[in-house]
């Protein structure tokens, strides 16, 4: 595993696209992404009847750190693009709500070393340079 410099990591965080994490008709509180990541945004719709209170949490359960909260009526959605670098989630992305179901997706970028290594390789290749450690 190559050692990326802080500058290289910062570049990756600023430029690497987010990955969609679909809710897939979510019917209960759920860990959407396990592990540290950057939260870049979301777009979801509430399809239930009663007003729902949604909590977006940095954690593996509802006892984590509150990141954001919505109060949504039936058929109402929420879309937010945070952009780069995004919100740092140190534990994971946990979705909690008083009512269900939800459809839509969150957009995250993983932060583990393997993912960063892969991003760096792609990033260097996209710039027309040989990836670090290969042919250099």
């Amino acid at each position, binding site marked *: 595993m190559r050692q990326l410099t802080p500058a290289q990591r910062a570049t990756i965080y600023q430029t690497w696209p987010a990955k969609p994490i*679909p809710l897939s008709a979510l019917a209960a509180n759920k860990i959407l992404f396990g592990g540290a990541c950057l939260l870049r945004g979301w777009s979801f719709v509430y399809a239930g009847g009663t007003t729902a209170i949604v909590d977006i949490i940095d954690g593996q359960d509802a006892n984590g750190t509150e990141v954001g909260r919505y109060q949504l009526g039936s058929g109402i959605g929420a879309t937010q693009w945070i952009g780069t670098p995004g919100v740092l989630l140190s534990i994971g992305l946990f979705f909690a709500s008083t009512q269900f179901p939800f459809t839509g997706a969150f957009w995250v970028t993983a932060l583990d070393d393997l993912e960063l290594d892969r991003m760096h390789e792609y990033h260097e290749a996209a710039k027309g340079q040989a990836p670090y450690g290969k042919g250099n």
Partner: protein
Amino acid sequence: MGLAYDTVLTDVHNAATSAIGLTAATTTNAVGDSLTVRSFERPAWARLLAATLQGSGTRRLRITSPRMHDNVTGLNWQTSESPSQFLLPSEIGQDLYSVDNLSVQMDAAASSDTISALHVYYKDLSGIDAQLRSWNDIKPHILGEKIVEVDVTSSATIGAWTDTALTTTDNQLKADFKYAVLGFETSAALGVMGVKGPATGNLRACIPGASNTFPLSEYFVRMSEREGIPMIPVFKANDRANTYVSVAANAASVAANVFMILGWLDI
């Protein structure tokens, strides 16, 4: 090197008088098991080697994660018999990510349970140092074979493990000697069966209760050779009091005589 081989058990309970679909069912993990991949550090790796499924009729299993190919349909199987084991490609399996949260979905027939077991291997898991060996390492050290009978009854709560002491039915293992667990046989269909004890880091190293892949009696040998990694648990007879046969089934209180196929070692 902190090798580890773990088995994660999940259950879908359908109390309704009609079948329940794949995405509608609620899965429950066995007590102590988690679908969150255990934490490990690179360059160590973790792999899903196989999945076992047991249910009434032809059942489906789906495993997804945002870190896999896709988070919508992911890995999909459907049984042709029960229990069924689904092997992932040899020597590569499905890579898993540290603390990633896996999602397991199963369907179930009317008024029945479906259970699944994920067989996960860790190359270096902090705090665990399972005594796993390769076939070539132990083959020249086998003095003979011993088959230990352990009469078990699966849990009255479907989807829960039952751990039965190794010495429950037969207690003839020779003190100070080591034994390699080559495989198992069973007199009745179980979902999964395996060994748990100090030699496995107190994780459950389990095999399917029946297999459409290769003989259960040498399951760990075949898997070790197939994957190219040490997978044969080796325990010391002196640990017999803390070594257990772990079983689970998709029906309550299944009585079975489980036979541990052991290689008696001179190491």
